[in-house]
């Protein structure tokens, strides 16, 4: 009878995970108390060997101290990722509970375990958080920020971020001070500035928590960008308020001059952060212009310049988050016009990977810190804080929307307002800021407890219930659309149209300035930052080119279109320079195949009657010819011609998978082609030829 026979499949893995947790929990304190073995010091042992009697040569020795720090770090990260893995193996759990909640619970368990054993659980070190864990998440968010919705709503976002956060901070701080004045609470020692400081820490919507929760609910783009943009841009306000109140609470009094300086400071912090980010962004773009011979290190430039932007602005006490966002946004269009396809993929996946790891670690550490941290519990204070958080957020959103809607063309509906208010989650930034408070604040422990309670409440209660609420209220979800050339053409067309009509009316609005910026960009900026002749390429052409390339790659990967010789990827150059005749022909062939595939996908015939395109790669004149083959014998009466189309066709997304059904018919042939495709599409590191051509992202 096998010891581990389990009722459901994921059981064995869960057991493994739990065993690992226990191991880690025990392992950590054990090594903490282990006697320090002799580490490096060959000279020392050499000397002792001369003076002492000869010992037996140690065949096997344990030297934990030598590797202790990296070992611990790696173990923690591994544990975090295994937890994450474990959740997704349990099917129903990840659908109901957002990942952030689960990770916090795990953190609580691990922290509890460590405490039970008798060791001090590690607390989320603020420096570690701000310098290592936060930047990847923000860079990922900033680099892939959807520019169009962001710029269209930037006014609303700024109003929510700045005025909303200020309102939250003062409302909460003021009311908590009033609360503390009441005798029965027993907190009469707390002065106004301390309360305002607390208010400013707790009032800011947290980007990490918002990202974690909103990613899973797929809400419509407008609401998503409003909450998310707000969480990013309120960093400047938080920084200024925090520093302001911290300074003042030491001094004890506030003058009008201080308030005025505070306002000036806000502008300096936010605009300065953006400026620093933009400078580094342009530097990165300029550097990427020259990387055509060293493609391998291209992604590093992106990462390093962004990180430098963050560190530089932190150095001057400017807003690091805004610097990161600005850097990512500025550098992206130019860098992506210059780098290779592989570098683009690398950047994308590294950013996603790092931000995922960071997010996981942050939530786990939050859990651990809760167990570890010094606590001072005061029922009234904590409960009031939580209630006030909700109330001030709701009031703020409703009030601001009322004013904003007067200026918006597309008004915010009540449902939008509700989600914006409900989605204002607090997270680890608040905790870290609280932790940074020096111990001289007598209320520090109380504040930390209250902050943690608020975070738990927002992440657990609001995080878990937002998904059913979204379903219940039937809030508009994100539209599932593939990038289509139609949309691109019509959008650009309408942009021109609206700019023109604004010109007719003599009205200098949104489109007018956007057009001016585009023109400036095209004439002056692009020629300096984009390599080669590409800067002249119109956006529409670039979009079309990358769309075709993406489709070709997708077809190669799914085995429908075996890759032709690698250098034909270069034929995707739709550029003003003269293209040699041969590759133009190849270009036409490939394009015909792609079009045929598109047409193929539009047919609603059953998959095993589809037509299989075969490219004869090894023809004599090294020029690929096209054959059309049918998997079944050609005499089948229901052979389908390419021209036939059925009016109703399923969405493009499903269709790409359609003809895959052929595989079973032509298994051997398909295997050969897939092998060929795989080895041709992924040449070794020496085959740099195919990377010579720039690739743009979607």
């Amino acid at each position, binding site marked *: 009878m096998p010891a581990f026979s389990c009722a459901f499949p994921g059981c064995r893995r869960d057991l493994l995970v739990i065993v690992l947790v226990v191991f880690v929990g025990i392992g950590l304190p054990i090594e903490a108390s282990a006697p320090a073995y002799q580490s490096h010091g060959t000279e020392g042992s050499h000397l002792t060997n001369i003076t002492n009697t000869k010992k037996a040569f140690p065949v096997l020795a344990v030297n934990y101290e030598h590797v202790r720090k990296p070992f611990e770090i790696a173990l923690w990260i591994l544990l975090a990722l295994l937890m994450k893995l474990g959740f997704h193996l349990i099917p129903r759990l990840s659908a109901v509970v957002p990942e952030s909640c689960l990770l916090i619970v795990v953190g609580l368990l691990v922290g509890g375990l460590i405490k039970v054993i008798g060791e001090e659980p590690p607390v989320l070190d603020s420096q570690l958080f701000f310098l290592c864990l936060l930047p990847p998440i923000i860079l990922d968010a900033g680099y892939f920020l959807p520019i169009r919705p962001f710029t269209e709503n930037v006014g609303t976002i700024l109003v929510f971020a700045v005025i909303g956060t200020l309102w939250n901070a003062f409302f909460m701080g003021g009311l908590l001070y009033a609360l503390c004045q009441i005798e029965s609470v027993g907190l009469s020692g707390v002065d106004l500035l301390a309360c305002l400081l607390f208010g400013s820490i707790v009032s800011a919507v947290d980007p990490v928590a918002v990202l974690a929760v909103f990613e899973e609910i797929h809400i419509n783009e407008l609401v998503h960008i409003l909450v998310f943009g707000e969480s990013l841009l309120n960093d400047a306000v938080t920084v200024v308020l925090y520093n302001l109140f911290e300074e003042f609470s030491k001094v004890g009094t506030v003058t009008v001059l201080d308030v005025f300086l505070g306002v000036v400071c806000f502008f300096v912090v936010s605009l300065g952060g953006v400026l620093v980010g933009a400078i580094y962004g342009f530097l990165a773009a300029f550097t990427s212009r020259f990387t055509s011979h060293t493609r391998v290190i291209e992604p590093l430039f992106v990462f390093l310049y962004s990180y430098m932007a963050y560190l530089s602005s932190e150095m001057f006490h400017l807003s690091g988050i805004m610097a990161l966002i600005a850097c990512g946004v500025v550098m992206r269009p130019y860098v992506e016009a210059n780098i290779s396809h592989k570098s683009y993929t690398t950047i994308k996946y590294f950013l996603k990977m790092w931000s995922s790891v960071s997010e996981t670690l942050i939530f786990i550490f939050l859990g651990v810190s809760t167990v570890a941290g010094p606590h001072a519990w005061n029922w009234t204070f904590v409960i009031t804080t939580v209630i006030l958080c909700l109330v001030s957020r709701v009031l703020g959103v409703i009030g601001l929307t009322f004013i904003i809607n007067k200026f918006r063309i597309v008004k915010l509906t009540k449902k939008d307002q509700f989600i914006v208010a409900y989605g204002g989650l607090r997270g680890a930034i608040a905790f870290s800021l609280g932790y940074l408070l020096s111990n001289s604040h007598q209320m520090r422990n109380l504040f930390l407890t209250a902050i943690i309670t608020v975070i738990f409440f927002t992440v657990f209660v609001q995080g878990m219930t937002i998904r059913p609420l979204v379903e219940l209220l039937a809030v508009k979800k994100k539209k599932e659309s593939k990038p289509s*050339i139609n949309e691109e053409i019509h959008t650009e067309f309408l942009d021109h149209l609206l700019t023109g009509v604004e010109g007719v009316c003599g009205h200098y609005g949104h489109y007018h300035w956007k057009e001016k910026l585009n023109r400036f960009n095209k004439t002056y900026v692009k020629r300096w930052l984009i390599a080669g002749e590409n800067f002249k390429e119109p956006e529409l052409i670039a979009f079309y080119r990358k769309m075709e390339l993406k489709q070709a790659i997708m077809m190669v990967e799914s085995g429908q279109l075996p890759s032709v010789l690698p250098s034909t990827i270069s034929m995707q150059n739709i550029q003003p320079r003269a293209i040699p005749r041969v590759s133009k022909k190849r270009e036409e062939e490939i394009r015909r195949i792609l079009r045929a595939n598109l047409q193929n996908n539009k047919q609603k015939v059953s998959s095993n009657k589809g037509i299989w395109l075969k490219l004869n790669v090894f023809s004599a004149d090294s020029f690929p010819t096209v054959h059309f083959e049918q998997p079944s014998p050609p005499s089948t009466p229901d052979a389908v011609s390419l021209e036939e189309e059925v009016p109703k066709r399923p969405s493009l997304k499903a269709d790409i998978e359609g003809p895959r059904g052929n595989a079973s018919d032509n298994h051997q042939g398909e295997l050969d082609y897939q092998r060929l495709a795989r080895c041709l599409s992924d040449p070794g590191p020496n085959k740099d030829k195919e990377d010579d051509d720039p690739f743009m992202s979607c």
Partner: protein
Amino acid sequence: MGSRASTLLREEEIEEIKKETGFSHSQITRLYSRFTSLDKGENGTLSREDFQRIPELAINPLGDRIINAFFPEGEDQVNFRGFMRTLAHFRPIEDNEKNKDPIASEPLNSRSNKLLFAFRLYDLDRDDKISRDELLQVLRMMVGVNISDEQLGSIADRTIQEADQNGDNSISFNEFIKVGNVYILYIDIDIDI
């Protein structure tokens, strides 16, 4: 100053335009002063040259088409009423208009009228379809002179192929506003006047 008096807008006219287009009083007066500033000939109508003098239209790739949209079929002059009627397409849809009496005729700035206006800018020969040639012309205007004809041709082919559902190799209005079954034009064809 004297000859201008005859071209000043009368209250009844403002009311009529308000009813027809839905613009507010202040918007109409503002646009009227814009109209008169464009009207160099001071004869109460605008000609094509008056429009071409607007710098933003001169550099706009679709400048000519936009200008043509203001002039009704075959005419060379447009008066203030016609000017406002065309601009009414771009007025944002107000909340209170959404519940309007459905029997009344559709306002000029309804969503489908806006899209129809955009569609007609492509479809010059008014046959209710965008043919490959018409699409090519628009693409050429937007993309400039550096791209070769074949390349534009393949883009046009791909566009038609994506959108075309009934196989007639051209894009009808219904195919224009969505690809597959997904509405694609989320951009609001509104401007703040």
